[in-house]
């Protein structure tokens, strides 16, 4: 147990940062002492990643206010490399490895002075990597190619890469996001060794059981401020949940009530969805239904399988099970089948999976919807133009003309354009993955209103959103997804953000216990 009253090794005082008028951090104090694991908690948007980016130099000195001290001396980092050379290491959430290189080469990637002059001394690299692994109790062959490793092993390689420079402070951003129960235990063993060596660690996570298991102190951020700081002896899952969700700036959601006794438009039975390549989680044995005019939310953490459920229903990834649309069983093998059945999907990533940058705004709206706008396979220019203008007006797409380039539209405008595309066929079921991601506050409001309007017209909506406040405020019913399963369900006024966090935490604790039993 480190002495948390000793002088902090690394501290930040009164950190504040603006993103174009949005106050991301409002005077945050944070510190970590040698040999301590300090948890940093908070919901999406609370300011965790902004703080971490300031602490490791991604947001360089000068772009924020406040001071950072290392060993009692003021420091300011110009870049992540600068932070690293001063003994502050960082393990990002996403796995960033060089697949074509060996484990040892990955561990030492970017380091110089490892061989004679320009040459790399292969054996020396392998020996040194092997020594680091032995030291940490990691069982990976340094000569193996990274392409052959599991995502858990890759994460360990990234941690090894971060500690090559012998950092005194190590930041870990959701290191267990892609790990299974036993793999988490292996990671914890590594962290305990580092702790014994006196490394100060900042541990960012969404998973409360892990905080209870390994951390010495916890700081909860909310709305860019420190909501509470708790020492290990006072740890309590309820306290965390309360302070994470707590009172927040209220956002207005339009009034909506699901119609009583409306027919079911979407029914999913025993749907099992394959995971994306490399990912551990798909979704299994999903049962859900959405009534006409109902807004149903899928709540859960990133990687819980919530998006996979939408992709499985839409035929984007292989899935088994039964899907019924307005009572009719439909066989969905591809997005084409889903669209024919009256299902539309709004994808999460506009740039990668939504927009066609080679086509102008108008053609982006009509693509996939050209059949009614054509005769004998020829697009009827006048009809297309008038229906584009109608759609643009209905959704308030503010482009100068249908010929305008998509690149130059704002995020909100691009999102509305994709809504126009999805709605052109008047779908019965609309699947939405993060419908307000990366749009401005005004458009966000327009989108909320649009969703409620659609529900009132009898469309069934199934929404995935990371912001729980949004989901709770918008949805008539929430399904909580954890580990690819639906673990809880509650209606409007039957619970809030705390209920989601509680059921996710309970599901994780259960899995932890099950994994412990297996490994015991």
């Amino acid at each position: 147990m480190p002495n948390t009253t000793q002088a902090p090794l690394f501290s930040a005082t009164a950190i504040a940062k603006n993103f174009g008028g949005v106050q991301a951090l409002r005077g945050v104090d944070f510190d970590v002492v040698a040999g301590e694991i300090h948890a940093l908690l908070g919901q999406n948007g609370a300011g965790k990643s902004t703080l971490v980016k300031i602490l490791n130099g991604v947001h360089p000195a000068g772009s924020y206010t406040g001071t950072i001290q290392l060993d009692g001396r003021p420091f300011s980092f110009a870049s992540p490399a600068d932070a690293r050379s001063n003994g502050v290491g960082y393990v990002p959430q996403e796995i960033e490895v060089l697949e074509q290189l060996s484990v040892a080469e990955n561990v030492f990637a970017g380091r110089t002075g490892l061989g004679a002059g320009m040459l790399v001394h292969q054996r020396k690299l392998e020996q040194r990597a092997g020594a680091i692994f032995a030291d940490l109790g990691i069982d990976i062959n340094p000569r193996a190619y990274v392409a052959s490793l599991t995502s858990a092993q890759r994460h360990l390689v990234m941690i090894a890469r971060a500690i090559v420079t012998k950092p005194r402070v190590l930041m870990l951003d959701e290191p267990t996001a892609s790990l299974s129960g036993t793999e988490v235990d292996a990671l914890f063993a590594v962290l305990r060794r580092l702790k014994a060596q006196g490394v100060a660690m900042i541990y960012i996570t969404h998973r409360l059981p892990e905080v209870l298991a390994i951390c010495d102190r916890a700081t909860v951020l909310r709305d860019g401020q420190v909501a509470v700081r708790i020492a290990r002896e006072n740890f309590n899952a309820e306290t965390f949940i309360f302070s994470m969700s707590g009172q927040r700036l209220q956002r207005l959601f339009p009034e909506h009530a699901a119609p009583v006794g409306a027919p079911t438009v979407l029914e999913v039975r025993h749907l099992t969805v394959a995971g994306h390549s490399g990912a551990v989680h798909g979704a299994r044995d999903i049962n859900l239904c959405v009534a006409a005019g109902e807004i149903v939310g899928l709540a859960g953490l990133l990687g819980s399988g919530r998006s996979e459920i939408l992709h499985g229903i839409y035929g984007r990834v292989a899935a088994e099970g039964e899907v019924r649309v307005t009572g009719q069983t439909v066989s969905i093998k591809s997005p084409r089948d889903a669209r024919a059945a009256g299902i539309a999907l709004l994808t999460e990533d506009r740039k990668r999976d939504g927009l066609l940058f080679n086509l102008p705004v108008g053609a982006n709206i009509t693509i996939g919807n050209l059949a009614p706008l054509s005769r004998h396979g020829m697009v009827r220019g006048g009809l297309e133009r008038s229906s584009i203008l109608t759609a643009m007006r209905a959704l308030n797409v503010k482009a100068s003309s249908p010929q305008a380039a998509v690149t130059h539209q704002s995020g909100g405008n691009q999102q509305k354009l994709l809504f126009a595309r999805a709605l052109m066929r008047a779908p019965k079921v609309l699947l939405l993955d993060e419908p307000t991601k990366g749009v401005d506050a005004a458009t966000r409001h327009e989108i909320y209103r649009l969703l409620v309007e659609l529900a009132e017209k009898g469309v069934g909506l199934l929404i995935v959103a990371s912001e729980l406040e949004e989901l709770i405020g918008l949805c008539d019913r929430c399904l909580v997804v954890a580990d690819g399963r639906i673990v809880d369900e509650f209606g409007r006024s039957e619970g809030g953000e705390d209920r989601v966090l509680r059921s996710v935490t309970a599901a994780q604790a259960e899995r932890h216990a099950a994994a412990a039993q297996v490994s015991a």
Partner: protein
Amino acid sequence: MNSAAEVSAPPRDARSFRRRLIGLIAVGEVGVLAAMALLIAFFWLLEPAFLSERNIRAILNVVSFVGIIAIGQTILLVAGEFDLSVGSVAGLSAVVAAKLMTAAALPVSVGILGGIGVGALIGLLNGLIVVRLGIPAFIQTLGMLFIGQGLIQVVTGGYPVYPLPEAINTIGGTDLAFGLGWSFAFFIVAAIAADFVLRRTVLGRNMYATGGNKEVAHLVGINTSAYKINAFITVGALSAIAGMFVMADLGSGGTSIGSGWELTVIAGVVVGGVSLFGGAGTVAGGVVGILMLKVVQSGLVVIGVNSNWQQIAVGVIMVMAVGLDIVRRRYFIAGA
């Protein structure tokens, strides 16, 4: 998509002259046409014989062969793939057709259909391997280039197939107008049809979507695999037709038909504003690009420049054209 008709549609409010000018420059083909006009004027001033009837006919005749392939290559590039085997396919189809007509003594029509069949079949093979097995088009079609060259030697034993039936010589020798024959007529008709398909039909629009972003196209219900495979088949069949027209023109199934065309075709359509990255360009642009390359090659010959310099000129023009296209996209389409 820089559809000329759409861009020049009557503006709803009076645009300033500047905006109109920008709108015109934003049409991909206009830039290439302007550059070509300048080049023609340049060569003509240096050597008036450049615009002689004979020279113009020679240029158009050559363009008709390569241009037929350029139509297919443009469609395939728009769909997001490309084909390096077009020259080999042209040559192989020609000698197979020639062998069917002579050694196998089959009717001319069967020979022609056989030639087109060989081209389409190779296109199908290229498409299936690229789309289903995920082998990059560059590798697959480069491999097919060598396979095709080898097969030409296997089929002919290294000797040109000669003599050909009289009907073939008639096809090659017909003068429809201005000394231009069936190959030019086919080229013009095919170019207009293909340009119309890409510009105006659902099929064309879906092709642009497929080349622009395959995943997005798939998500809006487009069968992207089918589009790509059919584009490969189209290129293969058009290459075969071009090869057979050259055969008819020469009056023999020569073993060097199509040799080196693949790069000329790609350079030409790229000069005409067709994107190597897929989803952008028009058949009109691609065809004008090919025409411009041939104008430059012919012009340099006419004004007496050493033939080694012609190749250098082609290289310089291609890089410059793509550079100008990038600038144009950045500064002009931005204001659309």
